[in-house]
């Protein structure tokens, strides 16, 4: 006995399939509006701020005056570097200070090796899951004149790379 119930089942199946496909399509296309392309905006703001701060620390207040960035690195003064960096970085024109945190390292060449020296360690807010940005600046260190050794970079004139990790917490 042949009737048309099989045909009905087939049509139902196709319709159900289409509905499922449509649902999946709608779900996929309406979610994830916040794409990789957008995350760079707050990153860009932090990067700009960080590189401004490094540039200003690298600009003496008077001609031939002391260069804060070079001085902190020469003296291996991580505390001073951190205080000055965050003073510039967290300053706003009004209201409370911003809540940025940082760590910094200096990359230099020692004989035929490239070594990294942690100038400022991360503080307690660092969990490793922050969306931190990295800003860098090449710094020229002159020949070290004083008798005490310049740790860990040695006495010779050299360019070192200062890297600062910056995050909000």
């Amino acid at each position, binding site marked *: 006995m042949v009737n048309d119930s099989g045909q009905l089942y087939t049509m139902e199946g196709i319709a159900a399939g289409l509905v499922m496909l*449509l649902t999946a399509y709608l779900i996929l296309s309406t979610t994830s509006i916040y794409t990789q392309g957008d995350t760079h905006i707050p990153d860009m703001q932090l990067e700009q*701020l960080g590189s401004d701060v490094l540039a200003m620390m690298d600009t003496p*207040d*008077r001609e031939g005056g002391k260069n804060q960035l070079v001085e902190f690195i020469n003296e291996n003064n991580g505390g001073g570097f951190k205080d000055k960096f965050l003073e*510039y970085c967290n300053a706003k024109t009004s209201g409370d200070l*911003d809540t940025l945190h940082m760590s910094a390292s200096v990359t230099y060449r020692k004989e035929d090796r490239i070594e990294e020296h942690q100038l400022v360690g991360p503080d307690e807010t660092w969990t490793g899951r922050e969306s931190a940005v990295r800003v860098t600046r090449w710094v020229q260190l002159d020949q070290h004149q004083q008798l005490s050794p310049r740790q860990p970079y040695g006495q010779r004139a050299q360019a070192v790379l200062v890297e600062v990790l910056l995050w909000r917490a």
Partner: protein
Amino acid sequence: MVALIAVASMVPGLLAGLQSSGIDYDAVAYRTGVILVEDPGWPVDPPWETYDENHKDEIERIGLAVSRDAPNILLSTKIEKFFNTSFFDPEDYRSKAIFGDIPYSYNITLRSLDAEGTYNYATGDDTPPGYGYIRRVVKIKEPSVAVIDGSFKDQYTTDTEDTSTSRNFTVRFDFNRLITQSIDPAYRIDPRAEPVNITITDFGEFLNGTASYATLESVTFRRGSSSIPFPYDESDTDYYTLRIDNNPVLYSPEPGVGVSSSISLVLKPPATSLFNLGPTSILDVEFKFEDEPPATNITGIHYYDYNPTNVTRPDLKPAVLEVAIW
């Protein structure tokens, strides 16, 4: 069904379009920040901040940087003009600093980080939630000052054999020495871009014997050997100010008054730009004293240059600039 899918597929595009307007504000704020901090504005020579109300339309861009070669170093005179809201109206800020077809609202603030808080400026409206934002760290450059005090007495006093009744004292701007590429624009003295300030203090030290004052007959400007006509009077404070004995009264370049303690002359870029000075010119500012018998023996040439004994250049002041756009 096809129509349903077509409509449904348009919905996320619609949502994404709405979402992106917030991101756009950040980009505009960033662009405005770059114009303010890294660009000296346009025109550059003479610089836009020297333009008066009648020539405001000729200003195309209001940037605050000293030079395009010195990003993040802002000029104090540009800052003062920029935040002068009786000179610039909101439409000027939109058309000369923010740009774009949409009439954005803005809030631009600047505060120096020195202990005195010398600079604290704001312009624009209060910020609503969801505005675009950028913060820049900068340093502010201020005009230089030549202070001629009692310590220069021996250097600038002529011998008493001179029997003439007039005494000339000159301050010399040698552009060959000033506008040199070896000086970073962040520290350069350029009278065409910044005011220059000549202050003679302790003038009593330069007076002869019992004289209580010397008469300042005139202040003349010379390029090489020829004097430059200077038809401005004391009310033209955009061009210069001349003060005597710390008196609030302003004087013309031919004051003819007695000086007992100090002279302060500030020569501003609109004036220097009229003098047609090139990169090798020499500008002399001559103070002429006339008394019978002479009341002072001041004479000589004081060089306005990079020698720290002759000219004091204030330290750069760190500051923070915030731009909010919505």
